[in-house]
């Protein structure tokens, strides 16, 4: 089976500045891959290129073995329905309530009946651990953690095989962020999702990622499990993983796993 995402010889240029040069990355089905890197290293850019919001300057990206852009509108639309994206600030439609937000992609299919959509929305709400009465709230009335949950429910509405998360825990307090991470991991296992996440947060990284890709110097500097990555001797990786805070986060993970 072809990998979920395949990035081949990707180069991106903003003005005179090369963000990526000859970048190669392949995301296997069913894995949870974390993209890490310093500010401005092009993590979010890469994520946006994977879902076709940005065109790479050179190179190609294939999702499930199919190219993102080839001019066939119908096929591109169907391909887009196979992944869900959780934006950093949720990107909920502010004029719609929670129910309408989650129902929106389903209604766009124009074939499902309202009753089924209602049940599916309620199921998705329950999956992200929200209560049915939350369905009638407006996005402005939600707390930060609830916004993320609703956005996740909307990303899952189309039953995607691939889920992309941009800073899933940014702006959440440690308690909320921990329960959100738990939720993502649980859903990932239940639904057999492939997950790609961009994060700065080591706790999130340690708790979720099955593999880590380090983005620096315009390419993928290292790719492997957290333990593999920590063995790589590079100033960025040393800084990122080996300060006290990082050690503590990774220590917690090990302790968390062996009660």
């Amino acid at each position: 089976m072809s990998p979920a995402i395949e990035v081949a010889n990707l180069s991106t240029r903003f003005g005179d500045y090369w963000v990526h040069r000859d970048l190669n990355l392949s995301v296997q089905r069913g894995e949870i891959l974390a993209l890490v890197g310093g500010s401005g290293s092009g993590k979010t850019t890469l994520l946006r290129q994977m879902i076709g919001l940005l065109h790479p300057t050179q190179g190609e990206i294939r999702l499930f073995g199919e190219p993102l852009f080839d001019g066939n509108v119908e096929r591109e639309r169907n391909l887009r329905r196979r992944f869900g994206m959780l934006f950093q600030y949720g990107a909920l439609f502010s004029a719609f309530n929670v129910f309408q937000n989650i129902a929106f992609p389903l209604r766009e299919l124009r074939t499902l009946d309202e009753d089924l959509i209602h049940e599916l929305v309620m199921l998705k709400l329950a999956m992200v651990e929200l209560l049915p009465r939350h369905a009638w709230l407006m996005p402005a009335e939600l707390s930060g953690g609830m916004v993320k949950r609703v956005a996740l429910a909307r990303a899952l509405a189309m039953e995607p095989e691939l889920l992309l998360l941009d800073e899933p825990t940014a702006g959440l307090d440690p308690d909320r962020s921990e329960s959100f991470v738990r939720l993502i991991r649980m859903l990932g296992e239940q639904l057999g999702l492939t997950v790609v996440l961009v994060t700065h947060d080591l706790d999130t990284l340690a708790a979720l990622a099955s593999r880590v890709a380090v983005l620096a110097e315009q390419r993928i500097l290292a790719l492997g499990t957290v333990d593999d990555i920590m063995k790589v001797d590079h100033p960025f990786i040393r800084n990122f993983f080996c300060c006290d805070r990082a050690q503590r986060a990774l220590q917690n993970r090990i302790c968390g796993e062996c009660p």
Partner: protein
Amino acid sequence: MAGARITLDTDAEGRRRLRLSGDWKLMALAPQYGRLAAELAAHAGDAGLAWDVSRIETLDSVGAMMLWRAWGRRLPMQLVSRPDLATIFERISGRQKKHEAGPAPRSPLEWVIIVGRLALSFWRHAVDMTALIGQLVLDFVHILRQPRNMPWRETSANLFKSGVRAMPVTALVGFLIGIVLSYLSALQLKTFGADIFIVNILGMGIIRELGPVLVAVLVAGRSGSAMTAQLGVMRVTEEIDALATMGVSRSLRLVLPKVAALAVAMPLLVLWTSSIALVGGMVSAQIQLDISYGFFIDTLPKVVPVANLWIALAKGITFGMLVALVASHFGLRVRPNTESLSSNTTASVVTSITIVILVDAVFAIATRKIGMPI
């Protein structure tokens, strides 16, 4: 991707069996949803039917929910399944159907509620508007005592944006209206041989009435909407809250400069637009009625008492302040969503124009004995 299939057959012991196979997931189901749902519904009532789902290749919650509904929200008596599918049904069955009623149910006295809500919202607007004006008066007193707190920079920026930048468009509209008015009047006056009264008509009409109202409508559409949208977005992005946190009064820093700037800019714009409109009228009168520029300019002060000019300037100041006040009032009411932003911007422009025309009528009655030629 194999589509979802339903086949009905009979096994060795003569029991009827419904076999489901293929991909039961959203992307495969959606194109043929209507047909499949009808087919499932047709088999649903059949109690003696055995369901075989073990041949299903992929099942997601949409497919599972479809089957679940066809089964009447419980597993059928005779079901051939697989463990991995069973967990999916389990997930769905965990959530019993509670018919969460939608948003509140409709009351038969809906219209009473609608009328009441309208009256209350009108009342709330009036109260908020009064509070805003009161706050501005307090701010003004504060500025008089401590002039260094006056936000000069913001006022000047607003003056430039809503005054100077509005000059080309108001000039263009004024000039064209002047020409049209003069041309239409000239056609009528010619038939009576009353050519020279064109100066009276244009002078009184434009200076006293048309100039101020025209400018007010243009400024309400141009600057009023911009002010509402600006305040609205600042509200959405919590900038107004940030200002309040730093101890900066929003009325002093955001509303007062707008009101002050329009109170200064509007009378000047009225003067400018009226002059250009008169020039337009003069050009048209020269072409149509052969009235020379010199005669026009010479006659104008004689037939239009100067009091009319003061009335026009007073209208300009009043309208300017009203447009800025209404724009700020609606801008500060924006709730953090796009719908509220657009509806408040619309309401701001419509209300400004309506209020300007209402106040213009009040002006017309209050000044009916002033500035009329004897």
